[in-house]
């Protein structure tokens, strides 16, 4: 492989990691609290508020049902508003994050629902406030599942980021399409795939390790 290609590969790797890092971080920061909100505000929850829960759940479902490539194009005005531009790597982060947030929220919601209701009852019987239940019961008890959720979210984001080339986002997927597919450079295609496989393996390995460490059950 020529040094030019190697450089391209490194540059694309950097772009992919940048897109993944920022969008996964924001997805976690927004998606995890949103997932918790979905649980606590539902009917019978510790902060029951169906008037808030129903619309929230609806919005989450709507965003989740739009295929990523369509979402990316559809929210271009919003992307321009947030990132200042609608093309490039930074611009690609906006739709990636917006797609990842509801996905994270639903998965976190599921993990929290799996906490035995007896634990919540026990905390309530000791006079815990709803906020104390969230901090001291929900989050620590669901932590292993939340770590696994974030692992899946990041791996899914790698797949989505391959489509970022559509709006000039760059990244490994884009490299594979432009050089490997459109220019018939099989070596680039193979190199890209190898790098992607290594990244996914590494993330999965670290994620599983952390989840196991947090799991005391």
């Amino acid at each position, binding site marked *: 492989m020529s040094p030019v290609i190697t450089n391209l590969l490194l540059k694309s790797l950097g772009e992919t990691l940048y897109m993944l890092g920022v969008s996964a971080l924001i997805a976690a920061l927004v998606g995890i609290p949103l997932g918790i909100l979905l649980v606590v505000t539902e009917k019978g929850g510790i902060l029951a508020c169906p008037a808030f829960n129903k619309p929230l759940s609806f919005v989450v479902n709507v965003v989740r049902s739009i295929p990523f490539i369509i979402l990316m194009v559809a929210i271009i005005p919003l992307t321009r508003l947030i990132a200042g531009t609608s093309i490039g790597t930074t611009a690609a982060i906006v739709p990636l994050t917006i797609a990842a947030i509801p996905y994270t929220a639903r998965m976190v919601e599921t993990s929290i629902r799996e906490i035995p209701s007896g*634990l919540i009852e026990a905390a309530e*019987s*000791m*006079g815990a406030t709803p906020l*104390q239940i969230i901090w*001291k019961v929900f989050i620590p008890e669901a932590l292993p599942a939340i770590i696994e959720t974030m692992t899946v979210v990041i791996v899914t984001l790698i797949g989505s980021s391959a489509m970022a080339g559509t709006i000039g986002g760059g990244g490994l997927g884009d490299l594979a399409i432009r050089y490997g597919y459109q220019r018939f450079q099989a070596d680039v295609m193979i190199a890209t795939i190898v790098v992607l496989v290594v990244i996914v393996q590494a993330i999965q390995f670290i994620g599983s390790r952390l989840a196991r460490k947090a799991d005391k059950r």
Partner: protein
Amino acid sequence: MIELKHINKSYDGHITALEDINLTIQDGEIFGIIGQSGAGKSTLIRCINMLEPPTSGEVLINGKDMTKLSQKELREERKHIGMIFQHFNLLSSRTVWQNVAFPLELAKVPKAEQEKKIAAILELVGLTEYRDKYPAQLSGGQKQRVGIARAIVSDPEVLLSDEATSALDPETVKSILQLLKRINKKLGITIIMITHQMEVIKQIADRVAVIEKGKIIEESSVVDLFTNPKTETSRKFIGSVISNELPEGLSHMNITKERQHPEDLTALRLSFRGDVADEPIVANLIRKYDLDVSILYGNIDYIHGVPFGKLIVTIAGAEENIRAGLSHLDNLPIESEVIGYVPSHN
């Protein structure tokens, strides 16, 4: 003192879970509530700390009506009411020590004081060396000890026990009950326990209420319930601990309901309690009424130190002597019942 006054609980306005419950529980006693599953006992115990607020009625704890408190006041009040559960409900992400610390953290007790209290409580429940273990590494009995430690670490006045021994094996049940009794005596904590196991009531409760279909059908001291049950349900519960059936060995004796032959022996069941157990009942039958008495089966149980016995005997003798003997028994403060006739050629 805990008073439940006219407690009603219904779901969706028509499914009635509790109906006009009235109970008074004295400070320092162990009060048992027994019922089959679905009788409403879980709902009842949750009315006391308002995990399930009653639809109507008053829950007075030391005169304070729990049903009239705001959420904030209620949380404060709950810190004085410990609760233990059938499935322990320990936080799996916390060690034994951290689980016991949980209620103290909620109450924002200073760290130094927390440590002193937790160490003392773990000593009391016998888990000092397990302090850094996670619940998954403990046996059921040990988990319940953690549950008990967590429930009493904040010095509550009342401990609610929700089927605390139902998920444990018989040997462990005994040791957990002994621990509860010790806590009751040593710390003076009032214990209210719901259970479907009469054995539990028999071992540690002072008084008991029997609940069926959402209503209290009987309430008395445990000794009274055992010796003089007033309802069929109570009798069934007692039967699970002290059998009312004929002992198996007697079945081959062909005891019949009707006398088949004039020579047949009369079989009697005598039940007695307390001081009467000391009276020479059998000797009197033999001496005063000239009857032949032979004992088929005998058993004495102790409930809170009160002897409670049962005897199955056959008597034989002249017709009028038997009649006189039976009427003598009727005048004694014991229960006697002719259970049938045994063919004499046996």
